[in-house]
């Protein structure tokens, strides 16, 4: 077993999750930073596929991401290692601190800290949004991305249709269309 690699998996997942305020989805940019940036376990494109699939499946996102990445990098032990790092420290903190936190939640400094985190998480997510749009443009061109973004906005925000339904329908449409590789190549160049 490669202890160094397992240690890296543990550190990456622990760091991302201890800094991730606002639930799992807010942690995705931090995991991206560790996996694509710091340790270079995956290319940007592959990571995006993993995020997309994790969004399509039910259940918590971060445990799916951590578990998959752990498995990808370090096999079964890597998977368990990543999950332990992602889940246990914060779960244990919750068990230990819920009683104590009741008395601290009204302290102004603590409130200020929780408030100041929100815009930073927003920025991390916006940067990630931009990356996804850029990738989309490389793959389906400007107008394709424009159209897909518009459709997604309307379906998700105005019609309040569940994201999983939208993603599955789009995947079926994309899969059944005849691939026009020549056009795709031309678009990738242009």
């Amino acid at each position, binding site marked *: 077993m490669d202890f160094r690699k397992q240690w890296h998996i543990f550190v990456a997942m622990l760091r991302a*999750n201890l*800094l991730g*305020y606002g*639930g*799992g*989805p807010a*942690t995705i940019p931090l995991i991206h*930073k560790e996996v694509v940036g710091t340790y270079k376990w995956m290319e940007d494109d592959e990571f995006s*596929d*993993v995020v997309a699939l994790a969004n399509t*499946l*039910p*259940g*918590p996102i*971060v*445990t*799916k991401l951590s*578990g998959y990445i752990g498995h990808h990098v370090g096999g079964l032990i890597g998977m368990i290692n990543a999950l332990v790092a*992602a*889940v*246990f420290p914060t*779960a244990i*903190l*919750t*068990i230990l601190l*819920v009683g104590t*936190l*009741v008395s601290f939640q009204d302290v102004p400094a*603590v409130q*200020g*800290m929780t*408030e*100041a*985190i*929100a815009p*930073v998480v927003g*920025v*991390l*997510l*916006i*940067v*990630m*949004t*931009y990356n996804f*749009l850029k990738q989309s443009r490389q793959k*389906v061109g400007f107008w394709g*991305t424009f159209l*897909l*973004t518009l459709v*997604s906005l309307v379906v998700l925000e105005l019609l309040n249709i569940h*994201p*999983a339904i939208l*993603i599955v329908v*789009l*995947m079926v449409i*994309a*899969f059944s*269309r005849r*691939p026009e*590789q020549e056009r795709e190549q031309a678009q990738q160049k242009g």
Partner: protein
Amino acid sequence: MVYWHLFVAFFIPGIVGYGGGPASIPLIEHEVVNRYGWMGTQEFGEVLALGNALPGPIATKMAGFIGFEVAGVPGALVAIFATVAPSLAAMLLLMKLLLKYKDHPRVQQMTSFIRAPIAVLLGVLAFQFFFMSWDDSGVVHTVVLVGTSLLLLEKFKVHPAIVIAGALVYGAVVLS
């Protein structure tokens, strides 16, 4: 028996809850409060509020806490396992399939089509955080924090950990 109940109570939200952990909270509440009566609505709400004040995924924090309350350490382990395992197994299976056929043109087309909707999901989430900040700390602090962190993260390539630590200090000193 109680372990089985814990397993079911967290297994069901884990397989029917789409949209990540936060989306499965109401489903967890239904199981924990209405079906098994381990907690009242108010207590559940308090634990949720405090859980949100701590970092990390919310679904597993709730599972850990409630499992521990109901049946000690083994209870916490069972609840966390039920939350994590089913969706992760599906993920590993489908990702394997996807990687196997990833050079197939139709599969490539499939993955390229879903970039934009994921961008929309992330973008909407980002704006929820911006509006939350706007409500809690006002326009000026929100603009200062957004501008500074964007500059630090993108222009100067500062590690997010440092930016977040900086924001915590700013919050404790300026926003309190």
